[in-house]
């Protein structure tokens, strides 16, 4: 029986996990870096331990230190949240070896799905369609051109070691590819010490639609429908909603069934999400699997009434799923807007001091926040400082409520993306649900 949980994370997700633990009468242990001493989650936990300096390698990624605290505090389980160690198979393996429950799938499954090549192979074996592309790195521009012509343009050139926006480029022909290949390989080598380049077909006018899964240790797996997360900047999500305004009931069923089959084939346990790209004809392709809870999980909670963190804890405890697929239904529409500490025009981070914070309130408004008034947002971690979630009986009502809530969201002292969020949801293509992953480039940046 899980009685005490360490949350190996920070910010809003640490606070979110603590909240459900309290509801289930589970004791909570927070860990925090020197930069997070005054963060709300540190005070909300039953016990809190300082684990090191701000840099993540010395704090939130410091496996030895975190496990030492787990032993010292005598916890039964570790909730990894998202990011940090949540998809680190070696960390999950260490937990398994030390007899601490890792709240997530087994380390084997994390490792399989964490590697781009093995994840694609596993999905293919499970009968899930994948985006056409190269399995292995291409070694020369000649080889790149040959492979690109086999796959068909447009092609996405991706640095294997890339991240944070560097090393990703879309090309439409051989000439552009040769230039992008050498440029990105050089940059990736200089910045990351790894020049390996992959090619992937660019699915045009694609939407990003993902399926939320829950699977227990008894072999039961269900899905909690989809979330559409097409509104992205720098390949990071900004606005998410459930259900998707685009897919038909038939596609919804097909995607859900494919995801459940994949989970069963993998021997997946706990909460997870399969991300798909969906084209204009509602063909869907596996993009990646997130073997953890996701930032945008609240929209699914709002339309299904399921507390996903509570389900994670029950599954980790060895309980069988009580939820049945045919008893689940979509109720209304939910939208989440991520609040980022960043310039709304350039998207550059904007750390600094929050002088005042007044959150919107209302019956259908949910706030998940990592900050308070008179609070320093440090440059060490992700710029997301909060999430605003609204529910409506339909999409139009949800948009109207989101608009009203954003308009009264008061956060002063640093730049935030709130002006951008307000502009996006006012745009006609957003209102009509014409949301593709290039929405921000097409409709926001060019019409600003």
């Amino acid at each position, binding site marked *: 029986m899980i009685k005490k949980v360490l949350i190996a994370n920070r910010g809003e997700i640490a606070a979110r996990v603590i909240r459900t633990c309290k509801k289930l009468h589970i004791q909570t242990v927070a860990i925090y870096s020197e930069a997070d001493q005054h963060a709300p989650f540190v005070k909300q936990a039953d016990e809190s331990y300082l684990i090191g300096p701000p840099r993540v390698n010395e704090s939130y990624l410091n496996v030895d230190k975190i496990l030492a605290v787990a032993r010292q505090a005598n916890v039964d389980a570790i909730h990894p949240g998202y990011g940090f160690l949540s998809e680190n198979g070696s960390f999950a393996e260490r937990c398994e070896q030390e007899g601490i429950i890792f709240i997530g799938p087994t380390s084997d499954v994390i490792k399989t799905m964490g590697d781009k090549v093995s994840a694609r192979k596993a999905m293919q074996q499970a009968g899930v369609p994948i985006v056409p592309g190269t399995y292995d790195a291409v070694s020369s521009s000649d080889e790149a051109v040959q492979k690109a012509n086999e796959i068909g343009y447009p092609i996405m050139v991706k640095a294997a070691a890339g991240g944070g926006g*560097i090393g990703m480029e879309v090309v439409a022909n051989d000439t552009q590819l040769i230039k992008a290949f050498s440029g990105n390989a050089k940059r990736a080598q200089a*910045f990351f010490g790894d020049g390996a380049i992959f090619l992937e077909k660019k699915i045009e006018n694609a939407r990003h639609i993902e399926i939320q899964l829950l699977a227990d240790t008894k072999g039961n797996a269900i899905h909690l429908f989809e979330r559409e997360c097409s509104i992205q900047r720098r390949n990071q999500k900004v606005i998410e909603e459930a259900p998707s305004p685009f897919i038909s009931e038939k596609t919804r069923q097909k995607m859900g069934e494919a995801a459940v089959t994949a989970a069963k084939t993998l021997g997946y346990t706990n909460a997870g999400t399969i991300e798909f790209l969906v084209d204009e004809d509602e063909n869907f392709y596996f993009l990646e699997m997130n073997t953890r809870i996701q930032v945008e999980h609240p929209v699914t909670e709002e339309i299904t009434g399921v507390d996903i963190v509570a389900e994670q804890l029950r599954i980790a405890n060895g309980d069988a799923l009580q939820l049945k697929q045919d008893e689940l239904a979509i109720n209304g529409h939910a939208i989440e807007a991520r609040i980022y500490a960043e310039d709304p025009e350039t998207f550059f981070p904007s750390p600094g001091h929050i002088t005042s914070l007044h959150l919107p309130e209302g019956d259908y408004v949910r706030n998940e926040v990592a900050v308070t008034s008179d609070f320093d947002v440090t*440059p060490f971690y992700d710029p997301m400082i909060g999430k605003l979630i609204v529910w409506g009986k339909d999409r139009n009502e949800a948009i109207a409520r989101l608009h009203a809530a954003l308009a009264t969201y008061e956060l002063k002292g640093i730049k935030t993306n709130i002006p951008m969020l307000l502009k996006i949801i006012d745009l006609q293509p957003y209102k009509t649900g014409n949301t593709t992953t290039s929405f921000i480039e097409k409709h926001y940046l060019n019409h600003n």
Partner: protein
Amino acid sequence: MQEIKATMAGSVWKIVVAEGEKVEGDQDIVILESMKMEIPIGAEEAGTVKELKVAEGDFVNEGDVIATIE
């Protein structure tokens, strides 16, 4: 003389040129890092790096001068 300024607050992750080095317009001078994002800061015109005003690991604010180029 051209002043290369930080476009965001953050720390200097990597300096990719040396003082005295000739650079092309648009060539990267430093990579800034803030909130998990790496932003290359480049020269606007070709020239010679006269002075680097920061070291790797330094914290800079938006608008701070990172380097001068002649």
